[in-house]
């Protein structure tokens, strides 16, 4: 398991954002949206959260996702990773497929 701090990321929503706020932000602002279950591995990290966990893809190269630290809370990150984008497209679920909402 890696450490998110070793990756170059942008904070889209700051620490202290609720999980719901992160989900709503991605659903409102991204055209390409995917859903994963808790424990899905992304950038060598297991993603934590209330299902469904939403991922937003931008320009085919960047992924925005909620990241939770046990003591600090949740924030929304954006990380560049074309290979991870391709993997998400193959392994995650679309909103319709997942039956969410």
């Amino acid at each position: 398991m890696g450490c998110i701090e070793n990756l170059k990321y942008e904070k889209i929503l700051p620490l202290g954002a609720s999980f719901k706020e992160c989900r709503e932000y991605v659903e409102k602002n991204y055209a390409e949206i995917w859903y994963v279950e808790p424990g899905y591995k992304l950038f060598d990290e297991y993603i934590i959260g209330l299902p469904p966990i939403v991922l937003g893809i931008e320009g085919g190269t960047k992924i925005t996702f909620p990241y939770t630290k046990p003591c600090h809370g949740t924030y929304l990150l954006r990380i560049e990773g074309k290979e991870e984008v391709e993997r998400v497209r193959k392994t995650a679920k679309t909103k319709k497929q997942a039956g969410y909402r």
Partner: protein
Amino acid sequence: MTEPMAAQPGKAIIVLGCPEVPVQQALALYVASGLSDRGAEVLVTGNPSVLGLLKVSDPKGAYIQKTLVLEKCVEEVVEKKRDCRLCIVFAHNDAAIAYAATLRHLLPGSRFVVVVFGKDPEPLAAEINFPCETITEKAVHNPAQLKAKINKVLGWAASRT
């Protein structure tokens, strides 16, 4: 109807949140001790700060048998190297609810109890949208009421202390 813990030896995981609310420390030791006394193999998981506090409070390991950093615990559960019969999550913030949701999803066969506490636990408890038993109590410094509720849910006789 849920079995009382006396009839449920086996593996148990206690998940702790950030250690800033004092009752958590006391109740973690209490619950770990109670589960151990009833034959459970108890693992306590949390961030390094909370585990460090517990180790100072229990230098001889009288109450806490095993500890593991939370990220590593999640990793082992995802990779199916670890499971449990009972999982108890202490939650006083949004992050802890996210961890509870994750472990609930990853441990579908476990009895799952979320203890929601702190200054304002009701809105936090309202975020729980996954199947579990919930114990909610406004508690920061005084663990008595929360302890009584935990005793009731786990089927433990009331302690005299």
